[in-house]
Structures are given as C-alpha cells and as structure tokens.
C-alpha cells in the first residue's frame, strides 16, 4: 500500500501541480546595525513595495541603530570577523580600516544610485511600508520613541509584530 502512495506522489499530474501564488506581504526583521546588514533588508522591502507588495519592517537589537536618529548616518562596515572582506583579521582591526571600508562601500552604493540609509528609510515610508521599533530592544538600549527617526510609526512587542505581519512572508536579517 505504501508503495502505491509513493508512486502516486512521484508522478504529479498537471491538475495536482501546486499553483505559484504571488507574494502579497513581506515582513522584514532587521536585527543588525552594520551598513552591510542594513541595506539588504531595506532594499528587499523597497523592491517589494515597487512591485506592489505590502512591506512591514521590524527593527530589533542592533537593527535599532538603523532607525536611531544619532546613529543612522554613521553605520559602519565591519572589517573584523568578516571573511568576505578578504583582508587578514589583524589588519582589519587597525585604526581607520573600518572607516575606509565604510567609505568605499558608500561610494560603490552611490554609483549604483542606492541612496544613503536615511533616504532609504524616507523612501520606504513614502512608499507606504510600515516601520516598527522593537519594545524589548528599546528597553535594553534605554532609547525612547523620540530617539528614533520620525518614519518609525510605533514601538511594538514581538507578539504585536506577528499580528502586524498577518499573511506575510517573514524575512530575518
């Protein structure tokens, strides 16, 4: 009997082939505050909005820096513990290396017409994406809503986040 079932499953007919349903809502959890980890989530969420897909962003742990007024313009590319940099870790730790790497990345992003993080956040907000800060991370870093950029519409809990993400594909970065 089991053999019959297997045979049935391994030969899907056209009628039983799963339908490819388009994504309608993307929910991104941004948990890192480095420049190279901030951009992917912001770009993916923006690409979703440009395609008519709803987008929700949740900034938690170090990701809170991406929407913190005093930090947003000063996010860095890490040069230590990052094998993709292709420089020895000891060199990466020398003073100034992180600034150089950050400047190089900012220049390259600019060449591709990718705006600075602050402008990305403005574009996302204008596009109708919804931005939320994480309550627990806010408490941990002792930040208040006033410390965040105005595009963050609310500070919510993880449970609230899942309510806001109804019907969404959730992406953790």
């Amino acid at each position, binding site marked *: 009997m089991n053999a019959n079932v297997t045979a049935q499953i391994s030969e899907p007919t056209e009628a039983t082939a799963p339908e490819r349903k388009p994504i309608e809502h993307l929910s991104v959890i941004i948990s890192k505050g480095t420049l190279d980890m901030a951009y992917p989530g912001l770009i993916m969420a923006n690409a979703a*909005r440009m395609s008519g897909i709803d987008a929700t962003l949740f900034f938690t742990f170090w990701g809170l820096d991406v929407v913190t007024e005093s930090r947003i313009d000063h996010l860095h590319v890490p040069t230590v513990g990052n094998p993709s940099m292709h420089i020895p870790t000891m060199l990466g730790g020398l003073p100034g290396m992180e600034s150089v790497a950050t400047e190089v990345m900012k220049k390259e992003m600019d060449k591709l*017409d990718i705006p600075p993080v602050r402008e990305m956040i403005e574009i996302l907000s204008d*596009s109708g994406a919804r931005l939320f800060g994480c309550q627990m991370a806010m408490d941990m870093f002792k930040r208040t809503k006033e410390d965040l950029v105005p595009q963050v519409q609310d500070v919510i809990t993880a449970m609230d986040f899942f309510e806001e993400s109804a019907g969404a594909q959730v992406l953790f970065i």
Partner: protein
Amino acid sequence: MPVLEAKGNEVELDGDGFMVDSSKWTPEIAEVLAEGAGVGPLTERHWKVITFCREDAAQVGQPPGLRRISKLSGVGTKELYQLFPKGPGKLAAKIAGLPKPKGCI
C-alpha cells in the same frame, strides 16, 4: 507570445506583459496597457510620469528606476504610489511601452 488588441492594432507583448518593440508605442496603446495593469483612466499626472520615462529611456538607453523617476520627473515617491498602486517600479515602464527596469531601486 501574447498579443494585445489596441484600437484595431495588434501589439506584441513579452511573457510579463511588457511591449516587445517600444517604438510601436502610442498614447492609445498606453491607455489599453494601463487598463490591463489595473491603473484607472490616465490623468495628466500619469502622463507626466509616462512622458518622462519615454524621454529618459530614449536618452539613457534603458528605462528609469523608481528613484530616478521620483528625483527627475517632478512626481514624488508618495504620489507615484498613488498613481500606480500596484507597483510603480514596473508599471510606469510597462505603460510607457518600455522593457522591465533592471535596477533594484
């Protein structure tokens, strides 16, 4: 290959509904493409965006991304999403008879 009927003319489209030959585009075709894309009757603001896209593409050689449109066309990001709610990133280019934009922004 899908074909669109526009005022008696047949317009060839690719698999994603973009025009294969953008030189055959006319404003009448834009109206039909807009209707098919769920964008209501085209207003003067839509036309401002569409005209910019065609002029920019003719100069640059590729359809403009959304950020470029918002910076240079005189229509801002918020309004672009109101005009093309189902995705201004693709729809502006599609209605302007251009290929799908290749940029991510």
